[in-house]
C-alpha cells in the first residue's frame, strides 16, 4: 500500500504547482523507498530509464525549422490566407484539420503533423485569423481559448485514429498481451474495432467545435 504514496506525491505536487520535474523525481524516490530501494539505487534506475527514453524528446528536432519559418513570416502568411477565405470559422477550420489528421493517422502517418510543427506555426494562427474575420478584434482571453482548442483538436484526432493503423505501438502491445495470455489474434482485428470509436470521436468533437464557434460569437458581443 505504501508504494502508492509515490502516486500521491504526484497528485499533491502537481496540485500545489511545485516544479513538475522535481515532483517526478520525488515521486520516484518515494515509491522506490517503500519498495525497499535506497535513494542512490532509485536515482540510478531513474537515470537509466531517462537515458533509455531519450527518443521521447527527439520530436523537438523540428523546433529550429519551425522557428526559422516563423522568423520569415509563416504565421502571418497562414493567417492572411485564412482571412481571405469566405465563410471560414474556427470550428470549420479545425473540423477540416481534424478530418485530414484522422485519415492520415489511420494510414500510419502520425508524425507528419503535430503540436510543434503544425499547430503553433500554422493551425493556431489560422484559427485566430478566422475568428478575427468573423468575430472582430481579439482579446487575449479569446486567443488563448482558440489556441487551446486547436491543440486539443490535434490530440483528439490522433488518439482516436492511430489505432486503425496496424503497425502502431498500442496495437502491437494489445496483440502481444493477448498472445501471452493464450488468445492468438491478428493485429488487423484490433485495428478494425478501433474504427467505430474513430467515427464517434469525429462526430463528438466536430459538434463541440461548432458550439465553440457560437461561444466565440457570444464572446464577441460587447
Amino acid at each position, binding site marked *: 500500500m505504501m*508504494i502508492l504514496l*509515490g*502516486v500521491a506525491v504526484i497528485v499533491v505536487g502537481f496540485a500545489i504547482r*511545485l*516544479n*513538475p*520535474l*522535481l515532483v*517526478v*523525481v520525488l515521486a520516484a524516490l518515494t*515509491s*522506490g523507498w*517503500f*519498495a525497499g*530501494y535506497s535513494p542512490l539505487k532509485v536515482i540510478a534506475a*531513474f537515470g537509466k*530509464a*531517462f*537515458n533509455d*527514453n531519450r*527518443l*521521447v*524528446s*527527439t520530436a*523537438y*528536432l*523540428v*523546433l*529550429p525549422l*519551425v522557428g*526559422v*519559418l516563423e*522568423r*520569415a*513570416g509563416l504565421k*502571418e*502568411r497562414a493567417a*492572411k490566407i485564412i482571412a481571405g477565405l469566405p465563410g471560414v470559422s474556427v470550428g470549420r477550420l479545425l473540423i477540416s484539420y481534424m478530418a485530414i489528421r484522422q485519415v492520415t493517422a489511420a494510414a*500510419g*502517418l*502520425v508524425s*507528419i*503533423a503535430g503540436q*510543434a510543427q503544425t*499547430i503553433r506555426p500554422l493551425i493556431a494562427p489560422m484559427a485566430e485569423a478566422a475568428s478575427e474575420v468573423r468575430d472582430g478584434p481579439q482579446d487575449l482571453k479569446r486567443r488563448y481559448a482558440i*489556441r487551446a482548442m486547436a*491543440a*486539443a483538436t490535434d*490530440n*483528439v484526432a490522433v*488518439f482516436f485514429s492511430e*489505432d486503425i493503423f496496424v503497425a502502431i505501438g498500442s496495437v502491437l*502491445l*494489445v496483440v502481444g498481451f493477448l498472445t501471452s*495470455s493464450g488468445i492468438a489474434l491478428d493485429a488487423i*482485428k484490433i485495428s478494425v*474495432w478501433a474504427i467505430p*470509436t474513430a467515427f*464517434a470521436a469525429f462526430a*463528438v468533437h466536430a459538434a463541440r467545435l461548432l458550439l465553440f464557434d457560437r461561444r466565440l460569437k457570444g464572446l464577441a458581443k460587447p
Partner: protein
Amino acid sequence: MIKLAFVYLVAGLMFAGFSLLSALDRGNSKRFGNAAFWGLTAVSFLAGDKLGDLGNGIVVLGLALLAAQGLLDLGQPATTSAGERIELSERFGNRLFAPALMLPIVVALGVLVLKPAQIAGVPLMDPKQATLVSLALAVIVGLTSALVLLRQPLISPLQEGRRLADTIGWAMLLPQFLAALGVVFALAGVGKEIGLLVTTYLPVDTRFAAVAVYCVGMAGFTMLMGNAFAAFPVLTGGVALPILIHHFGGNPAVIASIGMLSGFCGTLMTPLAANFNLVPPALLEIPDRYAVIKAQVPTALIMLIVNTVLMYVLAFRH
C-alpha cells in the same frame, strides 16, 4: 545503416548549440541557468550511453534542481520584429509553405519508400526507428530549403530553435522525466498494487457493471500513470480477461481494442501525459498550464461513455 544514434547525435548537437548561444546571450539575466540546462540535455544526448546509470541519474538531478530553483528565463536571440515579419510574409508569399511541406513529405517518403530500401543488402535505415530517422532527415531537408529559398542567416536555425526551446522551458523534458518515472513505478510494483485495489473493491458481477469498471478503470488508471500502455496490462489482466472474456464470453478483439481507446480518454485528461497536455500550452504561450486539458475534458468524458456503450453493444453479439 542510419540508426537512432544518428538522431541522438543531431539532437545533442542542437542542444549544445542552444547551450552555447544561451551562455553568450547578455539579454537574459539567467543566461547561465539556461546554458546549464540545455548543456546537460546535450550531454545526455551525446554521451548518455557512456555515463553509466548513476551518471545519468546525476544529470537528471541537475536538470530537476535547475528547473526547481527557477534558474531558467527567456533568452533574447536576435529575431525579426512583428512589422518585419508582415513585410517578409508579403515578399515570400506562398513560397513560405514549401519548407513547411517538406516535413510531412519527407517523413511520408521515409516511412513508405526509404524504410524498405536496401543498399548492397543492408537496409538504408533501422526499420524499427524509421519514423524518427525520417523525421530527422526531414528537418535537415526542410531547414536547407528554408535557408536557401527564404535567404535566412545560417545561425538562425539555432537562434530560432533556442527561442522556441526557451518558450517551452523545463517543460520540454517533462515527458521524458515521466517516461522514466513510469519505469521506476513499474519496478516498485505500483501498477500491480492499484490493479489489486480495483479488482478487490469494485463491483463486477453484472455484464454492464464489468464493462463500465473496465472502461472507466482504464481511463482512471491511465490518468494516474500518465500512460494507457501502463494501465492496459494491469486492468486487462485483472478485469477484462477473467471476467469479460472468460466469464461473460465477450469478443477479445473488441474488448481489448476499445479498452485501450478508453485509456486514451484518460490520457486526454491528465497532466502526466505532458507531451500532449502540458507542452502545448507552453508552446502556444497560453499562461494557464492546464488550458489544453480543460479544452479536452468534455470530449474525453463523452468518448468514455461512447466507448463503454460500444463495448457493451459490440462485444457480446453471438
